[in-house]
């Protein structure tokens, strides 16, 4: 529980004149559910995008499993073992749910054009294994009955689950969820909570960015709070909740 899986040290990010992230350092331990919260525009998603290689960072370093994370190309990040979902769902809408998950298996397998065309025996076996594993993952997140429907025809909650299944298909060591409960109703949120709890039980490390403070506080082992691109708190939920700076950030006292 104490070994660090991901360590960000002094990460910064500027967009033109806007300092979106300033010297952010966090440590995510192996096997924990780590929450990242903060008011709108605090830089949560930016931090997320920097960690997953979508944005280049300006300064600082990121260690993943003890080694510096090369953020040069997104598919390398996936290969290193970080998978993510998106705040605004980004499934492959014109592909079936099953196919979406199968794409995720790409990172752990070797698909070649010629192998696929020649139908080598090893290729067929691997493809069959991918299909089976993908079906299992759909089952795991609870959308197995929609396997052959186009992703865009799934309900909102199911799309979120499908995105998690697709991320899990890459066999991540760290699963990063960007506002998974956004737009969900109470029932869907409760089901999501059960799902994330299950992920932790199965030994996965989860980074959770969420607006729903209640969900984060109830679910996470530790929580960090961002405000104006800076980390203002990091601790177990009970301590963070009582932190005056956090209360001020969320409720606001006098104007600055």
């Amino acid at each position, binding site marked *: 529980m104490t070994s660090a899986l991901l360590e960000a040290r002094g990460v910064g990010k500027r967009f033109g004149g806007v300092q979106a992230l300033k010297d952010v350092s966090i440590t995510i331990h192996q096997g924990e559910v780590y929450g990242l919260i903060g008011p709108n525009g605090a830089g949560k998603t930016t931090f997320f995008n920097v960690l997953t290689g979508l944005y280049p960072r300006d300064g600082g370093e990121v260690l993943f499993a003890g080694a510096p994370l090369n953020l040069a190309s997104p598919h390398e990040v*996936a290969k290193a073992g970080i998978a993510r979902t998106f705040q605004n769902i980004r499934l492959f809408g014109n592909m079936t749910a099953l196919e979406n998950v199968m*794409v995720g298996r*790409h990172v752990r397998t070797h698909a070649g054009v010629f192998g696929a065309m020649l139908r080598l025996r090893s290729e067929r076996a691997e493809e069959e294994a991918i299909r089976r594993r993908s079906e299992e993952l759909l089952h795991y997140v609870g959308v197995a009955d929609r396997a052959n429907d186009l992703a865009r025809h799934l309900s909102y909650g199911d799309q979120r689950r499908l995105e998690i299944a697709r991320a899990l298909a890459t066999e991540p060591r760290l699963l990063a969820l960007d506002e998974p409960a956004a737009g969900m109703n109470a029932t869907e949120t409760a089901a999501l909570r059960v799902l994330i709890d299950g992920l932790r039980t199965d030994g996965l490390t989860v980074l959770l960015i969420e607006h729903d403070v209640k969900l984060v506080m109830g679910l996470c082992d530790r929580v960090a709070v961002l405000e104006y691109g800076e980390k203002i708190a990091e601790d177990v939920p009970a301590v963070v909740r009582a932190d005056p700076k956090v209360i001020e950030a969320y409720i606001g006292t006098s104007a600055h």
Partner: protein
Amino acid sequence: MDIFLQQIINGLTTGSVYAVVALGYTMVYGIIQLINFAHGEVVMIGAMVAFTVITSLAGGTLPAPVILLAGVLAAVPTCMVIGYTLERAAYRPLRHAPRLAPLITAIGMSIILQHLALLVWGRNPMAFPQIMENPVILVGGAVITGVQIGIILLSFTMMAALTWFVYRTRFGIAIRATAENVRVAELMGVNANRVIAATFVIGAGLGAVAGVMFGTYYGIVHYTMGFTLGLKAFSAAVLGGIGNIAGAMVGGILLGLVEALATGYIGDLTNLCRWPGLGTSSMLAERCVDGGNFVVFGSNYQDVFAFLMLILVLVFRPSGLLGERVSERA
């Protein structure tokens, strides 16, 4: 009736060649939104390479089908290498440049390939050796040749194979995922560079076969043949909805059919002597006497129809018949 059936068969033949070429345009466009104007030239080089191989083997003792196969087997890898080289050397460095830059590069590549072919094969049209026996079948007053049947069968087989590849294999799934969203596909571990290179290679391979079919059908090859053929296939891709694989197939066949039917009937329809009243009018009586003709538009207007259709599609249905919405890209 016989002219109708005949033109349907002719149109199906040219249409299936257009469709195979159109696939090369549409696959590349679907993934990187680039109109690879050099694709027509790749098809031309396929025809040229096959021409050289078949001509040099034709005098020998090998049976005709083997010679033809050798021509195809030489053309396909050559074109695949060219397709790969185009992507790697010309387009990849411009992947993140403004869209106009790769487009103009594509036109430049087209000119370069055309003139390389001019250097190698010369400026004169060359007769594509007709080594296969070409049996003729009569069906309801229309003539079907063995070559036509061969072209139609081969084209449909290739289209079926490509559909299977794209929809049923996981590399195909990666291609479709990349087409929908490159960045997300990359986050899932798809190597987008490989997928993009593969679409160029597959498109060029299909184009090579199309070039050989085209040369065999018309019996003539020329270093500029890729231009018109490419433009028509591009029109077919737009007609079907560019970026859409099924659309390219439908668009190609439809374009071939419209072209053939229009070419078949335009002479009669614009023959003013057949127009009631006109033929006996003082103006035309002299020309029309004894079954004379006054044709305004003859079948030499064949090439117009492809582009007429392109214009109509762009005006009335810019996303094409099976078009996917082009907007909405993250």
